[in-house]
């Protein structure tokens, strides 16, 4: 394995590719970060005086509250250049447009309201720059009844069908942490750009790519809609229990307390169920007519949770994880909090974390990328100070 683990970043796939990022928040910038890690030169345009609004959002590294110190900004803007230019004025937009021909890719987040205000047509820039790949990253896309709506991560999760599925049945539906719709859309945008680059290599043609955050979420459901269309059953949120009705029902996808926290079980196949019974010493359940189908087991999940809780109550998360995985071949996992995630031996073995020094006394740890590749080692640069590269980029003109 040693040979394969060793990547290199001397020769990355996007070497020589120039990206202009005119996008704030997380979705567009996360995409820009990913492209930078693969060798692209990413020039981030920031509006004076404060720049990307995430610079003002905590948590702040070492609690030092200033615009070059936000954890959210720092993570999502590693390896970019920062140029100050106010594109929200008609004059500034003209200056920005004069930069576009020097770039292969433009990432922007201009919704319909902004486009109307500034007077910029949907495909105006790609029409005048035929090789340009422009990706528009907005909450709802540039057409349709919601196109002028305002959004937030919670609103996206609500409309995208994620919120309804998380939390206890009958209680308030719960959001996923942080800015998941933005991260997902950033990943989707990165994929879209790679596909468009492949197209451009073949046909020589750039494209205008209209990405919608809502559509991103709507394609990232496992069987939420299929339960309705194939079975006529509404998929519900169900706390830490999996769906009960429908052919997706099973025991036990469940999270239970043990001696030092919570453990998540992911038992979903017949043979896993049988091994679970053997593990807790209740092989009699395998042939018990009350438990011989997935639906019956799901319907009786409270009783089964009781049995399983008894088995795990005196064990630690670690003991359970090792025993269930190594001896019984069952998918389980300890629920870790962030203080434990950063010490997790598997993540450490795969060297996923890296420290970055922003300045004297200002160091933070971040997760790099979720992959290890034999020929690609992500290139990680520092996040830029506001306007750090204005002169380099604009002065050269």
């Amino acid at each position, binding site marked *: 394995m040693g040979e*394969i683990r060793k990547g290199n970043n001397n020769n990355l796939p996007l070497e020589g590719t120039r990206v202009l990022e005119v996008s704030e928040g997380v979705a567009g910038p996360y995409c820009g970060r990913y492209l930078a890690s693969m060798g692209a030169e990413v020039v981030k345009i920031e509006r004076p005086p404060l720049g990307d609004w995430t610079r003002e959002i905590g*948590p702040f590294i070492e*609690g030092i509250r200033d615009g070059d110190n936000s954890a959210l900004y720092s993570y999502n803007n590693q390896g970019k250049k920062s140029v100050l230019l106010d594109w929200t004025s008609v004059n500034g937009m003209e200056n920005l447009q004069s930069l576009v021909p020097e770039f292969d890719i433009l990432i922007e987040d201009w919704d319909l309201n902004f486009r109307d205000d500034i007077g910029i047509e949907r495909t105006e820039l790609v029409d005048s720059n035929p090789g340009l790949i422009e990706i528009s990253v907005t909450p709802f*896309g540039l057409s349709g*009844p919601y196109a002028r709506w*305002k959004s937030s991560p*919670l*609103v996206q999760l*609500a409309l*995208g*069908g994620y919120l*309804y599925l*998380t939390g*206890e049945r009958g*209680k308030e*539906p*719960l*959001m996923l942490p*942080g800015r998941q719709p933005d991260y*997902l859309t950033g990943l989707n945008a*990165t*994929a879209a750009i790679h*596909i*468009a680059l*492949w*197209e451009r290599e*073949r*046909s020589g043609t750039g494209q205008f*790519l209209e990405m919608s955050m*809502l559509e991103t979420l*709507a394609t*990232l*459901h496992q069987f939420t*809609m*299929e339960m309705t*269309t*194939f079975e006529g059953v509404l998929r519900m949120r169900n706390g830490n229990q999996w769906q009960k009705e429908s*052919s997706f029902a099973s025991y036990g996808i469940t*999270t239970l307390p043990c001696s030092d926290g*919570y453990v*998540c079980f*992911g038992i979903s196949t017949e043979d896993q169920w049988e091994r679970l019974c053997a593990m807790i010493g209740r092989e009699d359940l395998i042939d018990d007519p009350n438990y011989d189908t997935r639906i019956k087991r799901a319907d009786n999940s409270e009783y089964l949770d009781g049995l399983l809780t008894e088995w795990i109550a005196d064990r630690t998360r670690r003991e359970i994880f090792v025993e269930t995985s190594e001896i019984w*071949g069952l*998918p389980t996992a300890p629920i*870790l*909090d*962030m*203080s434990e*995630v950063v010490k997790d031996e*598997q*993540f450490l*073995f795969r060297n996923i974390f890296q420290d970055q020094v922003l300045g004297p006394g200002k160091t*933070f*740890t*971040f*997760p790099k990328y979720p*992959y*290890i*590749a034999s*020929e690609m080692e992500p290139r990680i640069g520092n996040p830029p100070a506001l306007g750090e590269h204005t002169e380099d980029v604009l002065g050269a003109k």
Partner: protein
Amino acid sequence: MVKSLISSGSLSDIRVLDLTRVWAGPLATRVMGDFGADIIKISDPRVQLLSTNGLNHKLNRNKRNIGIRLDIAEGREIFLGLVEKSDVVVENFRPRVMRNLKIDYEALKSVKSDIIFVSMPGFGVDGPYSEYPAFGTTAEAVAGIPSLIGYGDGVPISTGIAYGDPISGLNAITLIMAGLRMRNQTGRGQFIDIALSASPLCNLGEYVAGYSSSEKITIPSGNRSTEYSPQGAFRCRGRDQWIGISVLNDNEWMNLKNLVADPELDSLETSNLEQRKKNEEIIEGLIAKWTSRLDVIETVSLLQENGVRAGSVSSGAQLLEDPHLNDRDFFFDHEEEEYGWKRYDGNSIPGNRIPKSEWSGTNDVGANSKEILIDLLGYTESFCESLASKEAVYFGE
């Protein structure tokens, strides 16, 4: 010089051998198939692919299917013959499964020197947990996601999404395309190892960075946020109907407060974020009192018209009927002989896809075996039959 896009889709010159199962892998290859790549799904003839619940229909459109026994010598020969004709091989088993089948990067490289081989196991191909079974819900647990979801009582809640999978699928598309791009530049293939558990972790960059600098973990409290207040899902009229609302700033709050028009609310100090955080519980209660009598769809429109971020909490059934998604022609309506017309999610990645009218439905196990063996590998009809009699290949029902 106006060139046109490739008529058969951006990825029509790419062939992918798809050994993936369940969700993450099939999602990635589905996207590539929609863009015209030749996806050859390899199924074990002993395992049923199609089921009545729609999951496989949803994920396996625009793919061909060949039924091969990889554990039989003749089946392996077929597989290696296909590798020689392919650009990418992707799998998402536990590492042991591929090892037992003697399928690894070296073996594939020896028949196709520039092959891109992608593994998507639970924890990565090496490390202390690498052989542990995993799926989306246990993967998100070790990344800390459930520790950041909850009602404030300390009980972690898993997402209803199996969240490791969709993120890993999106990463896979980008990494496959990056690998192919590098291959075209350097002539070399590579091995790419994407850990299901690391994918959600990389969507929590600001949490890792924030923890590393403060050593404080975040305790979730419903849908509350440090940035938006008030924020939450509020119950509306009808069964399990909720509206998601996020208030970002004082102006948005004034607009909402005027609509709620509750004297008790007007008597509270709420004009800035600090005051609203202090009175958060009372404010939430008064909003909930207001929304409980209202229709969710009408209220979302009313709030958005008044510049307040809001969206309905859509169930799977509501997602299918969403007026915005339908207006943008997002869905894919397809008729299967056995199941009739069904509605599936479309593709959220914009670009030069094959037109929806030309998309094909799911092929059952072995449906395309013969055409693949004859057209791609040049086998004769009688040789195909002899392989089938040895159970190395399966030609379907």
